[in-house]
């Protein structure tokens, strides 16, 4: 077997492999920049919470229509948005902080979602929803992923500047523009959108992996926002490709393989990145003078 056969062969020979690659790469492309902003806003765990929140909506879609993409995606999107808005509302109306109310809502959602899917389906269906089936992406699913990525990237480009300002200096943005709140909501919608986009392939629980792990890893390599987004995309794409390759040759589940590769890249970056443990320990950092 030559190198080409080894590295490219599976994707040429098998339609399901090439579709899986296209799907995962497009998800990585779209989700990684969103993950970068989540990380910079110190909302890394919010992505995780939202991923759980999608489940009851997808469950309702499943109850009504079975394992069909559109109903499950729309249901998941609606459920995710509702939880995000409710959590924000509770923190505004009561003394409870947003992280706590978010945790409460997503736990309710997770239980409700598992319950709903189990009502009609088997445990295989449940596994399907929770962990996805990147190797079974059909054309409808690919179109859905493409649409999600397009909407997401265009929206992100449109709100880039206010989002940047909102992260860096929220009070400044509030002093010059009333757009901060709207931008925050659009951003939350993008988080949910990318999670439902990824959930066909990776499942609700792992979709957040292609969002957060590349962003977290990129932080150890570069400093500028644009560079962070590009490096995160690169890491996401590489993880998708390598993960599928591992999955093919080692006969391991593809979703977890992709996320584990991203996880390995994260750990590697943590150790040897420009701003990782080894370099910042061997070469002491420049000290800030307050």
């Amino acid at each position: 077997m030559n190198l080409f056969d080894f590295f490219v062969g599976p994707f040429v020979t098998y339609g399901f492999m090439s579709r899986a690659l296209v799907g995962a790469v497009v998800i990585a492309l779209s989700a990684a920049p969103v993950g970068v902003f989540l990380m910079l806003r110190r909302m890394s765990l919010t992505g995780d919470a939202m991923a759980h929140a999608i489940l009851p909506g997808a469950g309702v879609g499943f109850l009504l229509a079975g394992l069909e993409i559109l109903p499950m995606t729309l249901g998941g999107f609606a459920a995710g948005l509702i939880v995000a808005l409710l959590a924000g509302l509770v923190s505004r109306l009561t003394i409870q902080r947003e992280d706590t109310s978010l945790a409460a809502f997503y736990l309710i959602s997770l239980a409700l979602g598992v319950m709903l899917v189990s009502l009609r389906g088997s445990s295989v269906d449940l596994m399907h929803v929770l962990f996805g089936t990147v190797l079974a992406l059909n054309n409808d699913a690919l179109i859905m992923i493409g649409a999600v990525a397009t909407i997401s990237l265009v929206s992100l480009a449109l709100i880039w500047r206010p989002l940047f300002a909102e992260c860096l200096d929220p009070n400044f943005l509030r002093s010059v523009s009333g757009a901060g709140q709207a931008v925050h909501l659009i951003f939350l919608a993008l988080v949910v959108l990318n999670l439902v986009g990824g959930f066909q392939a990776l499942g609700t629980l792992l979709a957040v992996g292609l969002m957060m792990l590349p962003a977290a890893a990129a932080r150890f390599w570069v400093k500028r926002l644009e560079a962070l987004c590009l490096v995160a995309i690169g890491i996401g794409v590489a993880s998708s490709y390598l993960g599928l390759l591992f999955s093919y040759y080692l006969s391991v589940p593809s979703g977890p393989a992709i996320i584990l590769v991203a996880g390995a890249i994260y750990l590697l970056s943590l150790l040897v990145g420009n701003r990782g443990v080894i370099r910042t320990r061997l070469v002491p950092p420049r000290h800030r003078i307050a």
Partner: protein
Amino acid sequence: MAIELRDLTLGYDGHPAVHHLDGTFADGSLTAIVGPNGSGKSTLLKGITGILKPLGGSIERGKTPTRNIAYLPQSAEIDRSFPATVADLVALGHWRSRGLWGVITGTDYGAVREALEAVGLRGFEDRALDTLSGGQAQRALFARVMLQDADVILLDEPFTAIDEKTTADLIALMRRWHGEKRTVVAVLHDIHMVREVFPDALLMAREPVAWGSTAEALAPDNLLKARRMTEAWDEHAPWHEGHTHQHGRAA
């Protein structure tokens, strides 16, 4: 332009932090706001910028929209670990003229460079924010205020934990804005500096204690009164006079 406060009450979640404030920042005035930590100075500035809606009373800003107010938050509120360059931060000052989706042009970058030069940060455009010292970061924020080119300038503790050289440079800049007939309001802790630089002062202790010419507003009996009022509601509220380097809870 003048800013008139009429029986203004501001606060958070329905709890007032500034009570029944009446008075005017006259057009082109240079006013210092002085008072212990927690006395509502930052809250008042947020009210004037429009970030906080009044719980009672009103703020008259004339015909000028709130966009014509440049506001410099207390430095602790800016995330300096954010991956941005000095130019990115300063260019936010173009917001009013460029709007939400406006394109930053080459001329705009020229303006950023000029503003950085004016605050003594020539050549700092591409430096990452997290490599700046506190004084340099404050200079950059002053450059952003310059770009905003606003009629009203509100500065919240601009000199806290800033070295003397930087403070002197930035005070000169503030005087220049005053000379350009802008209305400048700054929250300060250093009473000697206030007496030296600011014609007007507002002394706060949750409620306004005195507002007028600095000599009168910061007369010893007023300071004593503010101290007493402060002690009445919080025995441990820190009260600074003269130079301070400690710095209470950032709000």
